[in-house]
């Protein structure tokens, strides 16, 4: 079904709750209000159309605190189409109802809005999710009247660990600092014996304020700021940003530059998937595979260094093009590297599908059914391993993917093994794509000049990062700096699915399930918290052992 007929269908069914709507290329904007939001979203959900991709908030006010509005944008996506509900709330009393009961994955985004924008969303947990615990009350960094002085104060912090609800349950906290966690994240797993009964997550330990920082930097500076959001998928962040800015300024990037960008995107995907393969194997206790896959990953890292001059932040993008060409000699070494990697990848595919002890950790474990994946808004390889074909390279081709179509990689087995198979098969697809692009590289310029001021307007830029759809919302007021840059990274979408799938699994399977969506996670700690009659105490391993001995000596009273 075409995007236009889809939009007509949506406009028809939400009409009673929408005061005005506009369509532009692949976008449908619908104005609604805080009171009408829930029925409008219900009407959209009843069509079973798309998934909630992001909620953007921006402050249209000036520095005067009582002035202006906060505008909330609920973006629903389906393939190339984006349908947006726009809700304007007064800055003095910005409150909206939660759409969490209709769209479970919305809660994560609503909490982000509440903490960074100060939007009062009814029915959200009080605990913080994104900002640090000692961040002052009623100070909202993404508002325009925010000042650094207002953030200087701190607030009193209560006990860090322990959930508010369900007293009497045994909660195993993991993180935020942990020798095996690659990134700081805090998980609370309520267990009944070995079985997980509830899972919760606390993020934001490395909150760097990049979205706010972007408002204070020029369009050029921001390329490099965005590149530093993630050390693994640095190029795709910069690419999503420059694609958005170029479309706002109406700059036509030469085809050769687009192809070079795409080649880097695919090389980055290879490096990211090989890295994940190693990390996931490590979590399963299969360190041999971890070592070999990381050794082979060096091939692609060396190639990236040869092409761009850097192994991690390639800094290939410019507004209007790219810095580096991929010419004959470099292309040949890429081809040689890919030949080697293809042989190794065939070997790894055989291992993850035949190694008996490894299969016991993956086959039938952590299944996210097709319906769950759809409902919870999973994206990327995690969704594709559940048979949900969400891949922007296929559904909404951008850059050189228009000329070099991607064949979707799907698996309908839904379990961890499927996630391994999907990612490894995507590697083969990337090898094929890069070879094809190198063989048919369009001739021409590498860059065209781009204006320093970007015309007023807003744009949504979506690209397929190694972990799934990466969503950028960029808004310009016509100046030398952006007014708002909203970034929704793929991992945030997939947490909802993981937390709900974790319930009912054995504790020992949790690390594998967590790592299945491609964050980093491990599960072993030396200090646990015991909650009894509402008090929280931290116990060392020795204390716990002594407690256990005396507990059983007393007959388990």
């Amino acid at each position, binding site marked *: 079904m075409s995007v236009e007929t889809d939009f007509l269908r949506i406009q028809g069914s939400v009409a009673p709750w929408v005061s005005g709507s506009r369509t532009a290329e692949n976008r449908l904007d619908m104005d609604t209000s805080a009171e009408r939001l829930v029925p409008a979203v219900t009407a959209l959900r009843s069509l079973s159309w798309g998934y909630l991709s992001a909620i953007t908030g921006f402050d249209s006010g000036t520095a005067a605190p009582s002035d202006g509005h906060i505008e909330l944008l609920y973006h629903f996506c389906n393939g190339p189409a984006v349908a947006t509900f726009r809700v304007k709330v007064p800055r003095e009393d910005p409150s909206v109802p939660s759409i969490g009961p209709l769209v479970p994955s919305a809660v994560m985004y609503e909490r982000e809005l509440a903490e960074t924008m100060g939007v009062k969303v009814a029915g959200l947990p009080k605990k913080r999710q994104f900002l640090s615990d000692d961040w002052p009350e009623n100070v909202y960094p993404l508002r325009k009247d925010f000042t650094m002085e207002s953030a200087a104060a701190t607030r009193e912090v209560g006990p860090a660990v322990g959930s508010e609800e369900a007293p009497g349950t045994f909660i195993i906290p993991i993180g935020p600092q942990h020798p095996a966690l690659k990134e700081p994240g805090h998980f609370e797993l309520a267990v009944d014996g070995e079985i997980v009964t509830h899972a919760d997550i606390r993020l934001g330990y490395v909150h760097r304020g990049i979205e706010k920082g972007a408002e204070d*930097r*020029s369009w*050029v*500076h*921001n*390329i*490099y*700021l965005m*590149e530093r959001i993630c050390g693994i998928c640095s190029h795709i962040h910069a690419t999503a940003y420059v694609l958005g800015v170029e479309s706002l300024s109406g700059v036509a990037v030469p085809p050769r530059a687009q192809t070079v960008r795409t080649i880097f995107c695919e090389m980055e995907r290879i490096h990211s998937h090989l890295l994940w393969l190693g990390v996931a194997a490590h979590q399963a206790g299969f360190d*041999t*595979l971890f070592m*070999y896959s990381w*050794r082979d990953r060096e091939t692609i890292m060396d190639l990236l*260094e*040869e*092409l*761009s*001059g*850097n192994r991690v*932040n390639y*800094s290939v993008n*410019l507004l209007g093009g790219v*810095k*580096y060409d991929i010419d004959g000699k470099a292309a040949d070494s890429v081809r040689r590297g890919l030949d080697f990697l293809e042989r190794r990848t065939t*070997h790894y595919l055989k*291992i993850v599908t035949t*190694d008996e002890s490894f299969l016991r950790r993956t086959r039938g474990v952590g299944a996210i059914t097709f319906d769950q994946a759809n409902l919870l808004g999973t994206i990327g390889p995690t969704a594709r391993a559940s048979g949900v074909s969400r891949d922007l390279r296929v559904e909404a081709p951008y850059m050189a993917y228009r000329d070099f179509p991607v064949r979707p990689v799907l698996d309908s087995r839904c379990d961890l093994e499927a996630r391994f198979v999907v990612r490894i098969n995507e590697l083969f697809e990337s090898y094929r794509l890069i070879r094809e692009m190198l063989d048919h590289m369009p001739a021409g310029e590498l*860059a065209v000049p781009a204006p320093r001021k970007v015309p007023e307007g807003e744009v949504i830029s979506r690209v397929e990062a190694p972990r799934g759809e990466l969503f950028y919302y960029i808004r310009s007021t016509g100046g030398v700096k952006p007014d708002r840059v909203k970034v929704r990274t793929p991992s945030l979408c997939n947490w909802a699915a993981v937390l709900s799938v974790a319930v009912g699994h054995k504790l020992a399977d949790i690390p594998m399930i967590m790592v299945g969506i491609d964050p980093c996670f491990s599960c072993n700690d030396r200090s646990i918290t015991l909650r009894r009659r509402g008090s929280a105490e931290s116990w060392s391993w020795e204390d716990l052992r002594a407690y256990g001995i005396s507990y059983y000596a007393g007959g388990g009273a």
Partner: protein
Amino acid sequence: MLNDVFVSLFKRPFTERYPYAVKPAPDRLRGKLLWDESKCDGCKLCVRDCPAKAIEIEVVDRAAKKYLYHYRIDRCIYCAQCVESCKEGALTMSNTLYHLASADKAAFTEIYGAKGTGACSEEAAEK
């Protein structure tokens, strides 16, 4: 997999013997920023576009096109945006000067043009 392990037993170690054996860097490696005084016209586009505020240009005599080029090695993120922004081609990034770590803070500020000779070739920068 067992086969892999067995074969690897008879292979050379994969680890590189750095710093005893230094692998040649790729041609495009982005190392220390080098400035050519004879080409610079003092437009300060590099200063404006540097995302890390690593560059400052001090005007000594605008008519004679005499400038001092302050380059902060510790701030530089080696993105090469300045090289792209420079219309005169006065900036390049070295692919040999990349051992830039130092225990001395003074080593992180380079002022090109101050040593009298002005033009900064790789040899001059090495001294």
